[in-house]
């Protein structure tokens, strides 16, 4: 599964993309638990989930959304375009 990070999430984690084996994770929330365990930087970046948004296969989603079968999950702060 491809994981993407944008804006300060990318800066804090130190990379914009990583591959992860997440076959046993059912929701975005469970995926976050898996990612937090990867490094101190991950744990810090994912500290406050209220400041983070998630997209599943390029569609806005919630942390309760199922991720089974998804190929691309992205984490980023609330958007600030326009």
């Amino acid at each position, binding site marked *: 599964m491809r994981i993407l990070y944008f804006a300060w999430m990318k800066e804090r984690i130190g990379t914009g993309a990583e591959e992860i084996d997440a076959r046993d994770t059912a929701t975005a929330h469970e995926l976050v638990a898996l990612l937090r365990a990867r490094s101190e930087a991950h744990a810090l970046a994912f500290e406050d989930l209220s400041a983070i948004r998630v997209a599943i296969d390029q569609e*806005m989603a919630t942390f309760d959304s199922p991720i089974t079968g998804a190929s691309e999950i992205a984490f*980023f702060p609330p*958007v*600030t375009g*326009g």
Partner: protein
Amino acid sequence: MDGPTSATTVSVQREDFDLGAEARHLTESSTDIGALVSFTGLVRGSAETVRAMELEHYPGMTERALETIAAEARSRWPLDGVRIIHRIGRLEPGDQIVLVLTASRHRQAAFEAGEFIMDYLKTRAPFWKREETAEGAHWVDARETDETAANRWDG
């Protein structure tokens, strides 16, 4: 098919855009469009405040999100054409950031659809601004007022 004016065209680009040319392109192939509304967003700032900003986005999802927003607008209002351009990369005060054009037979439809697209774009399209000030660079925080503006179109 009612020709090119009925199209929705979305662009995410580094290059600047030309409001006049985009407006002509959207309206020239039909004489049924009575109203054209444009919104142009510009970088505010100065040497003392925001010197520049960097616009990051999520390639692939951005275009999809903008097309979904345009389609949602077209399902709510009778539109003859929609054009959205959003710039990415480094921009300076006075630079154009975003253009939304809505064409319709009815002026209220063109106005409301333009405002709706901007409200949704601000809260649903994956762009992030990083501002450079005299104190350094920082990611811009999302604003509560943008969320409120987007929510007023619900229900």
